[in-house]
């Protein structure tokens, strides 16, 4: 019981810090002291924090490598954009908040379905097949989106492949992407999505299912001998992460008037993976800091013009040193969880 309380207190502290950060940001925005370019970065920061935390669920907590997280973001962005347009046309839902929430849920749902479709065949296998397949998935989604056309005709949705001639108003236009998106995303909603993501990931890790997920990561053979269905729990982590990435994608897609499929390239997947690795694999807190810092950095570094990439690289190294520093690690572990990435090293292997 004592332990239960401790993890609950740790979670509360984490939520507290995030809420505090939000209040500070919101106050600076209201006071007008935040620069325009930084203000424009607030929603992308939220998006990338959710992306990094959800990817950490796969890489850190379940110990599988995924190289196509941006693919789920893409699915979420497009389904969110289409869904929001459809909601307006077919149901005349005017409230932007309700439409945004429903669109994020739709994004999460479709990305989750994509996660199931990938996970079912791949997560049965032992070994790093997931990395290869998710890598391919990210590229396939991008190419598919290049050829997909959606249109709305009096509340009815039309789809075609490689054929832009559709009845009604074209809302997704192949390589140009979703064009007439209404900007719905707000910073408070982004913040709410971060809290929701933290809530899901932290509560999941501190539950029966989460312990099973970590058991499969730490020692697959022992986990199976304890009657834990490894595929099921790897799926659980993977699909949850995909759904969260889909919600982040919807938030991202509805943040501008167009959604360009080229946005969700392999580079984006790797960028999110970099956040996770820099923040420390399995370290949720580290993911948040790395994602926030490295998303705003390119903007902040404009002053350095020519030396921008150099400074960026130096900051990367500093973040890596800091988040993997034993003192800071143990502090953040105490703040968050005790799960250490070292556990990955003993993963799998043949039985004795």
């Amino acid at each position, binding site marked *: *019981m*004592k*332990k*239960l309380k401790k993890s609950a207190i740790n979670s509360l502290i984490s939520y507290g810090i995030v809420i505090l950060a939000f209040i500070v940001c919101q106050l600076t925005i209201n006071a007008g002291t935040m620069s325009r370019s930084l203000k424009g970065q607030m929603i992308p920061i939220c998006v990338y924090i959710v992306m990094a935390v959800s990817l950490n669920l796969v890489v850190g907590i379940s110990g599988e490598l995924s190289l196509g997280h941006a693919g789920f973001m893409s699915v979420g962005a497009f389904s969110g954009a289409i869904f929001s347009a459809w909601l307006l046309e077919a149901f005349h839902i005017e409230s932007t908040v309700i439409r945004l929430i429903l669109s994020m849920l739709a994004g999460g749902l479709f990305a989750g379905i994509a996660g199931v479709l990938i996970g079912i065949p791949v997560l049965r296998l032992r070994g790093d097949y997931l990395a290869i397949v998710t890598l391919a998935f990210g590229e396939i989604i991008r190419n598919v989106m290049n050829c997909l056309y959606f249109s709305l005709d009096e509340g009815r949705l039309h789809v075609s492949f490689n054929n832009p001639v559709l009845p009604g108003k074209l809302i997704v236009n192949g390589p140009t992407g979703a064009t007439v998106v209404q900007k719905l995303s707000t910073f408070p909603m982004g913040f709410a999505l971060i809290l929701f993501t933290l*809530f*899901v990931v932290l*509560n*999941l890790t*501190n*539950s*029966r*299912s*989460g*312990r*099973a997920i*970590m*058991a499969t990561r*730490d*020692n697959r*053979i*022992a*986990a*199976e*001998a*304890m*009657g*834990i*269905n*490894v595929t099921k729990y790897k799926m*659980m982590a993977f699909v949850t992460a995909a759904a969260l990435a889909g919600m982040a994608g919807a938030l991202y897609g509805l943040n501008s008037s167009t959604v360009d499929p080229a946005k969700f390239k392999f580079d984006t997947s790797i960028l999110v993976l970099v956040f996770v690795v820099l923040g420390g694999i399995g370290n949720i807190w580290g993911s948040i800091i790395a994602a926030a810092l490295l998303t705003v950095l390119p903007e902040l570094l404009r002053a350095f013009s020519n030396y921008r990439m150099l400074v960026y690289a130096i900051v990367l190294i500093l973040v890596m040193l800091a988040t993997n520093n034993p003192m800071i690690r143990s502090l953040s572990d105490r703040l968050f969880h*005790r*799960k*250490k990435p*070292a*556990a990955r090293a*003993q993963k799998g292997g043949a*039985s*004795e």
Partner: protein
Amino acid sequence: MTQSTGKKRLLDTKMVPAPSQGIIPERDLLSTPVLEARHLGIEFGGLKAVEDFNLIIGKTEIAGLIGPNGAGKTTVFNLLTKVYQPTMGTILVNGKDTAGMNTVQANKLGIARTFQNIRLFSNMTVEENVRIGLHNQVKYGMFTGIFRLPGYWKGEKRQHEKAMELLSLFDMQDMASSRAGSLPYGAQRRLEIVRALATNPSLLLLDEPAAGMNPHETEELMHNIIKIRDRFQIAIMLIEHDMNLVMGICEGICVLNYGRIIAKGTADEIQANPVVIEAYLGKKKEG
């Protein structure tokens, strides 16, 4: 005793018993044997690691599996727990054929084990290790866990109570929140037993449970193995090199050499068997 065993078994199961099946304690004669292996075998690229392995274990029997290093003892455990699929033979657990099952299903059917090379979840706490053993005993779903529904609090409380109760068997309650990997060797072996026991097995397989323990710990382990059997009324099969332990608590002993059973019997019979002495006890210094 072996003779009469065979006859009685014939009477109540109508199965044709394989030759020289095993020593079942008299108290278990009327219950379905917890394990029955028939002509079990496996090859690794031409090497017959285990061949024609036949064994019956009674419902509350403590059985021993001994033999020189590399004889195939651990491989037998891996076959029984379906880590390896046998290339020959059948395994019945509580009368059910396990053909085509995997490790998870074998565990759900009632086989739990410990590992010769300790396989704890070493970055988790002692209690969490036991809770993972309780995975299929105290259940609640993923959404109940995420949204902290009443089932979560009930389940967590139940898991905690059960874990502490099991840990107290080995006087390990005080270590509940230590990291499993930080425990001394002997305690890690005990924790593996507790974790296996948490899965509520009918047959507990212990792979060299006394390895690395001092004589005092081994003595305690012997009492605890008997205590576990008496309290949970389950069968225990153990692989062990410590002859005091094996001869002291095993009711039936099976000797393996080069993948084949070379003798079966009680402690006295095994100790007097010249084939065993030559194959195993004679080479004791090596082991």
